[in-house]
């Protein structure tokens, strides 16, 4: 079995559908990890779901990045275990410096929830919705070598992200941060089922 842990912070609100999504894989064994746990079991993949951890007060993701659970997650990430951060999870990974760059307020200054088209580096197209207020990716020039672009928005870029970046891998390809929500693109009633492709791309790296 492939063991997956979904980390729950106070204010996470996409954890239920994320768990439902992951459970559609028969080979996944899905468990939840409470953010106060200071010793995290060794699993194959950790998922940081979307939401508003700690109400996104102060700055999106920063308070959650200081939760006890993040010490172990950081260690396991550097050991090469898979870590996936979706939306608020991406913001947490950036605040913890597990991924480089930062996520600023959308350039529209508004929350945006809609379908978007993404492209990977091989120009494959994915249709996955976004839902965020702080999703404008930005990084310094020197940080450009610290990550690999995973997905870009197809123009027009909804939130003003640098180079249209929607998701990034770290250089070892074991950590993925994503602003779009793959857990909102897998069921019959969703507009597409491309969420599976995103997970496949990540696991096959």
């Amino acid at each position, binding site marked *: 079995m492939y063991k997956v842990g979904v980390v729950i912070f*106070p*204010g996470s*609100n*996409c954890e*239920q*559908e994320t768990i*439902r*999504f992951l459970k559609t894989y028969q080979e996944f064994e899905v468990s939840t990890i409470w953010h106060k746990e200071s010793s995290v079991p060794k699993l194959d993949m950790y998922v940081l779901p*979307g*939401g*508003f951890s*700690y*109400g*996104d*007060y102060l700055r999106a993701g920063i308070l959650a990045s200081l939760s006890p659970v993040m010490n172990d997650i950081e260690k396991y990430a550097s050991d090469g275990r898979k870590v996936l951060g979706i939306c608020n999870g991406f913001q947490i990974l950036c605040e913890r410096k597990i991924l480089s760059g930062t996520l600023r307020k959308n350039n529209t200054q*508004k*929350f*945006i*929830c*809609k379908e978007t088209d993404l492209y990977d580096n091989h120009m494959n197209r994915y249709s996955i*919705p976004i*839902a965020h*207020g702080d999703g404008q990716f930005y990084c310094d020039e020197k940080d450009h070598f610290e990550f690999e672009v995973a997905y870009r928005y197809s123009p027009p870029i909804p939130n003003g992200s640098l180079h249209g970046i929607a998701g990034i891998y770290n250089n070892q390809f074991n950590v993925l941060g994503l602003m779009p*929500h793959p*857990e*909102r693109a897998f*069921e019959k*009633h969703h507009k597409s089922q491309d969420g599976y492709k995103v997970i496949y791309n990540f696991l096959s790296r």
Partner: protein
Amino acid sequence: MLTKDELIEIETRLNRKPNHTEKSVFDAMWSEHCSYKTSKSHLKRLYTNNRYVYSGPGENAGVISIGGTDRIAFKMESHNHPSYIEPFQGAATGVGGILRDIFTMGFRPIALTNNLFFGDPAFSDDSKRVINGVIKGLTHYGNCVGVPTVSSKIIFHNHYEKNPLVNAMAVGHTRERILGSVAKDSGKLLYVGAKTGRDGIGGAVMASDSFTDGVDLRPTVQVGDPYLEKLLIEACLELAKTGHVIAAQDMGAAGLTSSATEIGIKGGSATFQGKCGIELNLDKVPLRETGMEAWEILLSESQERMLFVLHDWGIEEAKAIFDKWDLDCVEIGHTTEDGNFTVYRDGNVCCNFPLSALEYPELERPWTPRFEKEEVQSEYRFSTENILSQYDSEVQGNTIKGIRDDVAIVRIPKKDARGKDKHIAIYTDSFPYQSYINPDQGAENCIVSIYDKLISIGAKPIALTNCLNFGNPENPEIMFEFKETIDAMARICEKLDFPIVSGNVSFYNETSGQNILPTPVFGAIGLMEE
């Protein structure tokens, strides 16, 4: 404010002059907002029961059964007055309030909708301020708390310019135990959530009065914290499963006063022989500010606070749950068997009277038909992608048809692998112009059109909630509009077997003598047929 007659009535009931704290309590509880004194006698005529109805009006929200152990709670509420004074916080706390009505009963909120009525922004900068603030407030609160907003309808008309309407509806689902709001057994009172501050004092009284231009009422508007609300949802639902809860109340209008007294007033089963009393010690209430007086603590409308009545043996487990979610919880009193409302502050008794004295006598306000009608234009509807995309309509992953569709459809996920998914349809509407021309016909047309709409997408219409927004009821012509609307609702709902299970009445939607159009808003739940 209490009238002279009401003061005399209080004195006869108590056999003495009420002190300042007691007077404040009566003032809040006898406001239109809390007592429904004008509408109570009319609302009795409504059709409220059929085989789908689990519990009708009277509880925090109406509950319907949709087969198996699946139950749906839903209710609509207005937050009109605060949304004009301070649009962002007014609208945000409106969402918070209606969500609390749902999860206080042990239901997980699964959908939000809103119906908004504004003046035309093209003609007034003030309307622009209100619209921007209201939409920011609604989206901020709903998105953060993680409940999808599946429908938003905006109607423009110049009569709403100085008195916008913000009506929000919340829908919840549960398969577990449902929590009641009255004490059926003796227990301890547990205060949970935010600390009490001076915000929102007198909110219920403010909402029961009409506006005058140029008076700053901002201190009467509460401030919302959606993050705390999210924690309350999770903690409350976890606590509901333990079975230790005797009653649960959210502290909404008139704060601690109304939640504590409501636990007692309708309480009184065999345990109390009809004499359930409440004893509160205000010294234990967590305060945000220093030097708050008893009446301020009792009437504060600080948001995200709840009151539980728990069995003695459940207190420890409850405290552990709230500790897990980093929520403050304090024991502030207990139920008694003397039927009195007793409040202590600094060791002194500052309130002591029988709870039954709070029951407000019904009011029969006079009504007359309106003969001369000023000509008004019809309302118009408008919404843009720019507004709709600000709502997170897909969180929780169960939105089949969302905010961009006419009728929203939300899935109820199956319980286990053997079960089957269920789908409910949610639709809201209002015809204010038709109601102005003919209140009876307007309400009837609206309900029939909602019924038809649900049928047309393949749903069986189950039940209705409503929010009745009217002008100043002391004006007999406005009272006539209200009475006619209720008559139509009673008649047509019975004919269609379409019961009304919950509702809200908002009077005094009048600013500087200008009344709004009579605006009954209806929200319906339908069950999608296989």
